[in-house]
């Protein structure tokens, strides 16, 4: 599983998919609720607070310690106990992220296209596909994510072209109603989502040119931020922030308005198909990251046998999530501070350890 290498462009596409796939449908309503007409600008603040510093720190770690995943790196820098503990933490968080991604799929699909399908009938096949994706490895998933990026560019341009007559640019103003702080309040949930990227070090370790891994992660996150801003801005400019805030999935509702003559009317289904592709990549990648870290923590040479077990745990966790409002509340309150602490804390800790280790190694040379 760890042998395959990816380019930094593929890493960027994968990072884009991991950041954007779930936020695309779920976050715009939240951004409009708190950020109002300027909510579209909030992801930029999230990027600057969480995604960019984490990408830069991971990039620096990948450059200083090429081709080492988080567990291996921590083992090398902090000792075997901390290394295995950190790998276990990555495995737990990645499994939880797999469960959250599964739940997103199980919530969106019945509302959007398959109203009569029971939750497990959706989640179980999706999990099987995700397990297969994780089994194929990160390189296959990275290649798949390139299609997701291209499909999103195409569908956004199509939406822009067909909805341009309905766009009211003034609905994107004012940038804030009361104070600029409002934008940071709106940026809080995306910060939690973006901060998850500290677990991506195992992906950065796969990049063939290690010194470009940071660039790939930052570019992916920047592109995802831009895409979220554009999709949110389009929803706000058409519906107005009050109406967007009332939707559960405003981008989906926006795509329902697209018609090309009386011929092409169901572009919302295409949007959902593209979104599903992204969610498959996202879920499978989190599962792969979980297996990768768990395999290291348990000292296994081949992590693949862990995939079904981890998928089953994710499925159980997913079933324990009560409903969509709970998921929103959890994502916006508990998850963000937890995710941000780990996201900024662990890479910073590893960088500090790496710097200290570097100094210690240099000192004997200087004494000599």
């Amino acid at each position, binding site marked *: 599983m760890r042998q395959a290498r990816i380019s930094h462009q593929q890493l960027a596409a994968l990072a884009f998919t991991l950041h954007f796939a779930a936020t695309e449908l779920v976050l715009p309503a939240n951004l409009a609720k708190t950020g109002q*007409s300027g909510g579209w600008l909030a992801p930029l603040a999230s990027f600057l607070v969480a995604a960019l510093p984490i990408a830069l720190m991971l990039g620096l770690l990948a450059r200083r310690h090429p081709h080492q995943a988080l567990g291996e790196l921590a083992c090398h820098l902090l000792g075997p106990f901390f290394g295995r503990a950190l790998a276990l933490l990555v495995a737990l968080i990645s499994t939880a992220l797999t469960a959250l991604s599964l739940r997103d799929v199980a919530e969106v699909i019945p509302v959007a296209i398959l109203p009569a399908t029971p939750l497990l009938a959706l989640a179980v096949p999706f999990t099987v596909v995700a397990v297969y994706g994780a089994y194929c490895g990160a390189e296959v998933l990275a290649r798949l994510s390139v299609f997701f990026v291209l499909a999103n560019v195409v569908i956004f341009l199509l939406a822009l072209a067909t909805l341009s007559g309905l766009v009211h640019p*003034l609905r994107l103003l004012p940038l804030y109603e009361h104070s600029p702080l409002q934008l940071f309040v709106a940026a809080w949930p995306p910060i939690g989502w973006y901060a998850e990227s500290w677990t991506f070090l195992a992906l950065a370790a796969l990049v063939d040119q290690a010194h470009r891994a940071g660039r790939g992660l930052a570019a992916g996150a920047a592109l995802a931020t831009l895409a979220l801003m554009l999709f949110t801005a389009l929803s706000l400019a058409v519906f107005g922030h009050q109406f967007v805030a009332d939707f559960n999935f405003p981008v989906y509702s926006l795509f329902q308005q697209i018609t090309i003559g009386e011929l092409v009317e169901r572009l919302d289904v295409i949007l959902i198909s593209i979104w599903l592709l992204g969610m498959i990549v996202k879920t499978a990648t989190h599962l792969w990251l979980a297996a990768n870290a768990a395999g290291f923590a348990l000292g296994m040479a081949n992590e693949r046998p862990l995939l079904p077990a981890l998928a089953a745990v994710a499925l159980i966790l997913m079933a324990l999530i009560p409903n969509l409002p709970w998921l929103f509340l959890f994502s916006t309150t508990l998850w963000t501070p937890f995710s941000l602490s780990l996201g900024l804390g662990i890479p910073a800790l590893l960088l500090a350890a790496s710097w200290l280790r570097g100094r210690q190694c240099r000192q004997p040379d200087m004494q000599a």
Partner: protein
Amino acid sequence: MRRAIALLLLLPLLTGCWSRRELNDTALVIALGIDLVEEGVYEVTLAVAGSGAAGGGKGQQGGESLPSRIVVSGQGRSFAGVLRDIELRLPRRINLTHTLIVVVGERLAEQGLGNTLDFILRAPEFRLQGNIMMVRGGSVRTLLETEPIMESLQTKALSEIAHARVGLEMRLWEFFSARATTYRTPMLPVVDLIQNPDTGPEGQRYAAKLGGAVLLRNDRVIEYLDAREVRAIKWLRGHGREGVLTVPCGEEPGQEDVSFHILQAGRRIRPTLQGGRPAFTVSLTGRLRVTEIQCTRPLMQHEVHEQLVRRAEEELHNLIVRVIEKLQAAEADPLSFGEQVRALYPAVWRQLGERRWGETWRETPVTVSVDLRLQTTGLMSNPL
């Protein structure tokens, strides 16, 4: 080989089918109406596409004529309850995906819509692309039972009239978007049930006509607009094209008229501040084509057509001013004037108070200017 087997095993999972419904088991609703019967009791009427709908009229099967649509209704306190009640009488499951029109009864609109339309926003099958309108002069059921001219379905006929830019078109999402704010006034186009003209189907008492509109505040009707006023509203919304302006054509205004078809229509609404309070400048532009002239004045003479165009400008100016004054008197802003102040002067907007925009709008000065140009006189130059 192993991957191929894995793929084969995964294939059955990708069908996505669960609780499938065949087309034969589905009642496709094409129009939906809701009206108030008494306090808290609503009548929901559904126009379901019949087998004859696809054929452009009444179809034939086994010697029996098939209706183009079936109208069913039920009464109850909630939409979901009424829907279940109707389903008990229908041999098919109701499907709302193809609902083209939502019709609100006059009584319900007068008494207040409340949350009666909440189901439209929640139901995933509603795509908010359909039109919403209010029926006047009869019940929702009567409207949906009326046979249209040249179309097999009344709903299709009404949405075609709206699409053709002749009447006011109000999409569901547009209506709900305005309703979600405190400063944009929702509008409902009005369908009048009028006495059937001779050309209608035999024995039919009513015909439907898309005419004026109503303005709503707090979900209740506060003002009616007639068809002429709706034309002004359409121009101010940026949909003035395809309208007609008729003005007197004699040297002195008299019985003879000239009609101009509006080929191009533009509008620009610019907010400014006057003494810390908002003011607006509305500039309308348009290009005209002479469609009919009843007098014998030489149109090719510059002075003549300039005079006629000036009259058209004056006519349009007066109409626009009158409509804006009417909107201000009703403290209604369906044209997003307030939204412009909110976007461009947020400090002033905060000071004025979002919820008190109606009162501010009432006092806001609006300057209207009209600039029309004659583009063509059609295939004829001067009248015979």
